């Protein structure tokens, strides 16, 4: 017993040191965001600012339309999350609980998509977006204008569905008992009614996990907005942050902006840790 508690003690110390090393960049980011420029560049490093410069935060956001960028990001994140929850769960339900022609073949083609890194498809996805007919000045054949480039739909359409989301929903719906379908069928409940009245209300953990994963992905995404957004008014916070560095090189302001862009996700994570982890885990276990 004595030996066991000693080893636990050592393990605890090791983990504590490791976690301090891992978290330290974030702590330094916060303290830096409250320092003056002079303090950051001083030859002697002090951990805490002499006087907390909360004014760094409004200053960081003063010269760019950050309000608009935050609003864009929130709108795009909510839109992508809500729509993808509906489409993915419908598709997952269909693949898991219904029988129809070509089902397995279609599902295998979805599985293939899990292997394709999103970075790989940005060039053609850009071309498809630009060539969508009757949008952004395009004619019926998708020519002459800019299509959905630089629009909200352009930002979100490609992430309304995803191989991973379909897969996750299918795995979840496979676990429902067959008797549930049988009973509903006898009561005369059609497929749609069954989906909306039985499956959706009983899938809260699935919908929350997937919603959180999709929301995080959309909030954090950089490469697709980088490609599809041209104008300042359509930018997301990640683009704003990446451009920030080119405009201002004051570290304390950059750290204040970085901390603010992170904040919504960290709050969301703390509030919903359980679903976060279960979503990741389901994705991990059945991969």
């Amino acid at each position, binding site marked *: 017993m004595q030996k066991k508690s000693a080893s636990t003690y050592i393990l605890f110390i090791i983990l504590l040191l490791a976690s301090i090393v891992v978290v330290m960049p974030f702590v330094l980011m916060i303290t830096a965001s409250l320092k003056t420029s002079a303090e950051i560049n001083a030859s002697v490093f002090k951990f805490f600012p002499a006087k907390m410069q909360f004014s760094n935060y409004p200053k960081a956001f003063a010269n760019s339309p950050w309000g608009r960028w935050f609003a864009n990001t929130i709108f795009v994140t909510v839109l992508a999350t809500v729509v993808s929850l509906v489409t993915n769960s419908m*598709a997952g339900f*269909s693949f898991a609980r219904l029988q*129809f022609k070509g089902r397995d073949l279609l599902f295998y083609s979805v599985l293939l998509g899990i292997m394709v890194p999103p970075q790989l498809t940005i060039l053609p996805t850009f071309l*498809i977006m630009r060539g969508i007919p009757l949008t952004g000045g395009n004619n019926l054949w998708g020519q002459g204008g800019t299509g959905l480039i630089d629009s909200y739909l352009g930002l979100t359409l490609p992430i309304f569905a995803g191989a991973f989301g*379909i897969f996750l929903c299918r795995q979840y719906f496979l676990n429902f008992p067959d008797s549930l379908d049988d009973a509903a069928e006898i009561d005369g409940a059609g497929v749609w009614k069954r989906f909306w009245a039985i499956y959706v209300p009983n899938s809260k953990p699935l919908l929350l996990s997937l919603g959180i994963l999709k929301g995080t992905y959309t909030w954090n995404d950089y490469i697709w907005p980088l490609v599809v957004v041209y104008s300042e008014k359509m930018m997301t916070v990640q683009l704003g942050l990446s451009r920030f560095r080119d405009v201002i090189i004051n570290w304390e302001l950059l750290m204040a902006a970085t901390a603010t862009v992170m904040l919504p996700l960290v709050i969301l994570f703390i509030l919903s840790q359980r679903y976060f982890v279960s979503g*990741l885990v389901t994705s991990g276990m059945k991969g």
Partner: protein
Amino acid sequence: MKYKHNISGHLMILPCYVIYLFFVLLPVLMTVWFSFRDYDLFTQSNFVGIDNFTRLFTDPLFLVSVKNTFIYALGTIIPQILLGLLLAVLLNTNIPGRGFFRLAFYIPYLVSMVSVAMLWLWIYDPASGVLNRFVKFIGLPPQRWLFDMKLALSSLMVMGVWKMSGYNMIIYLAGLQQIPPQLYEAADIDGISGFRKFLHITIPLIQPTTFFLVVINTIQSFAVFEQVNIMTDGGPSNATTTIVHQMYERGFVDFQMGYASSMGVFLLLITILLTVFNFKYGREGQDLS
């Protein structure tokens, strides 16, 4: 399942599948199509046969990016998985503060690569960055981390491992919780040491998780782009340029869509090859256990 739901079944997958078709499957086919063509985004594209591919293998810049991508992948995949496993094993015990530790190790994975890149740009800053202050404090010479040809790629790799280990930890934790505790209890009765339990029970039983993580980490590490684009833009002197970074530069900066697509095809082939290799190796490993 006794019922046929042809129309409803198709209708329910329709919205999702159409989007999937147009934004995942079709783009993959288009990448292959454009890799045999010359296209500047504006005029008609022309068929050029395998010109793009012959150019790939004679383009010193692309060859450097392939080398960098492989170094980055090799240098990140193994540490990420090992650290993830180590943390998961330690946190799967009844250690106090377990919830806090899990949160602490997971946060780097949670936040965006852009935020992380900004943060580490400052950490690595030669003049006011924290790392050089620390290095000086322990009596070593300060370095120009991201501006030094020999150090830049390693600096990106360290940041990558810091960001991704928490993800591997969470997935491993889930895998560890699937192992029936009776196995360890039986081993305890037989007086088997902790390390041998780890070697002979834990490692074989979490092999499916390891396999999954190898595949996922491989796909991600080979597609490394964001940190390169934000932190170094491929520099100094192309020391950190990667395949996807070259693809982006050729496609969206130089408007050489065809040539950029051939890089995409190259990356896709590598990814498929490694995934197939992983599957084969993973399967063999599972047979052994």
